[in-house]
């Protein structure tokens, strides 16, 4: 299912992700978001330099870090048996189109529960000034055989 020894492991920083304006629009349409994520003039009228992302957009960045775990042979992560259990985002500042972001994932805990593994990851997302922008916390349930 997953190797419990990766608890506490910190995965390397991901390559910089440029938050593109059209990507924000594409994601916004997919989650039925509002004009702050679609209309540049509207976003600017709210005081933002560019489009502001919908609250769950950091999942795209989290995904880049999670790919490192899935592709880590030492993790022995069986992704075909994974169900998303919980998700949380804590923002230090809003993410705006034009931001250049990297992320660093830490395996917080691995618990066994009823034949399943519950794995909790913290992904810290930083901007190009190394300021923390958002922490994405994800709990995945890896179902037993």
């Amino acid at each position, binding site marked *: 299912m997953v190797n419990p020894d990766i608890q506490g492991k910190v995965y390397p920083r991901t390559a910089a992700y440029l938050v593109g304006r059209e990507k924000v629009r*594409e994601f916004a349409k*997919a*989650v*039925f978001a509002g004009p702050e994520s679609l209309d540049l003039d509207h976003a600017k009228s709210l005081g933002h330099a560019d489009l502001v992302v919908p609250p*769950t957009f950091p999942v795209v960045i989290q995904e880049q870090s999670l790919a490192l775990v899935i592709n880590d042979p030492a993790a022995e992560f069986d992704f*075909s048996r994974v169900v998303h259990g919980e998700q*949380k985002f804590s923002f230090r500042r809003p993410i705006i189109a034009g931001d250049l972001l990297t992320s660093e994932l830490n395996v917080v805990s691995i618990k066994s529960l009823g034949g399943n593994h519950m794995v909790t990851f913290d992904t810290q997302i930083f901007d190009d000034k190394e300021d923390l922008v958002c922490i994405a916390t994800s709990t995945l349930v890896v179902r037993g055989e």
Partner: protein
Amino acid sequence: MPKIEELEIGQIIATKEFSITRDSLVRYSGASGDFNPIHYRDDIAQSVGLPGVLAHGMLTMGMAIQPVVSWLGDSSKVIEYGVRFTKPVLVSANEPSAVLVTATVAVLNPENNQVRIDLTTTFQDTNVLGKAQVLVQL
């Protein structure tokens, strides 16, 4: 922007019904990069023991907060948002699935002007997101 002194605990600040179709799932797959086929192929969904295609949990999570964002007028006022994925939202090939979101004031913190809004996200009379809490800065 809503004012904290005009809010009370238990007050419903927004409700909205969303209609999710297979098109919605394909669009979210492309936008998010989550191309797990259980979100567009019934045969594969059934082969892993599911009744059929289901919506991405992250699509439901992303959608459920939108009535709160509309109420705030700006997604940057959201400082924390968390959910538990408790039940799947099944989406058939030709019929839309109706998901009803109700957003209620749960906690008022006048000292820092923060409010916790709790969401109830209902599909076929069942809440599909547990402990769905949004902390907002007014």
